């Protein structure tokens, strides 16, 4: 996008933010799957309907906290889609103003 100088337009800049948030989401999802499914270093136990118990193999509290925060991955992908939607809306607005501009110039 930088090569084509698209990021100068606000719509495309917002789409660039989408890509940034998707990269963060991918890293986050990779981390959760790695800790939970592949390395199995964090065990999740549902105590009751409102509490879970996390236990890391090495007993590290920071690893458990990291895992808990990483589970909130929608905090990355929802803003990503919000940026895509805002970007597309701005591109649509820009395309409408481009279509109406020559008419305005003729009338003016």
């Amino acid at each position, binding site marked *: 996008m930088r090569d084509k100088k698209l990021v100068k337009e606000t719509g495309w800049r917002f789409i660039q933010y989408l890509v940034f948030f998707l990269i963060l989401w991918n890293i986050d999802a990779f981390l959760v799957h790695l800790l939970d499914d592949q390395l199995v270093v964090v065990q999740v136990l549902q105590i009751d309907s*409102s509490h879970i118990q996390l236990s890391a193999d090495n007993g590290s509290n920071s690893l458990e906290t990291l895992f808990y925060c990483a589970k909130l991955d929608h*905090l990355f992908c929802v803003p990503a*889609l919000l940026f895509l939607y805002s970007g*597309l809306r701005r591109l649509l607005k820009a395309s409408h103003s481009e279509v109406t501009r020559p008419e305005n110039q003729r009338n003016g």
Partner: protein
Amino acid sequence: MTLPFFPIWLVDVVGSIMMTILSFLCLGVVFELKRSDQYNVILTYLLWLCFGLAAFAISRSLGHILKYQFLFSGREIIWDSIRPFSGAINTLTFVFVASVTLFFEHIWKIHQQVLKDKQDLQSAHKKLFYSESESRRSYSQADRIIGCF
């Protein structure tokens, strides 16, 4: 470490619903954009990207909402059997998004080359047209001069 489950549940369920709604809103806007400029390659790319993201949002949201339904109703075994399929569909939709991006990178280059060739052809046509009219003018001048003798 014992932690509250509510934040994870809330972010997951609300996030899943929001993702589905937003992906369909994006599709609506991109359809409108495409209608205004049907042959724009970039807009075609954005349309396919939104299709991929909508498919991803639906499969992931369904997966996450179903997960809590099964977990809270004590039917974890059913979720354990669905989980690999749900995950595979999610991964496939993301592979689709990545493939579309890579494919359109090449299409964009080809499109730019075609546009450059079109411009070159137009300028060559202009030059040819100018030289043809110049030679016609010279011939008619030469004819007139010969006619005088």
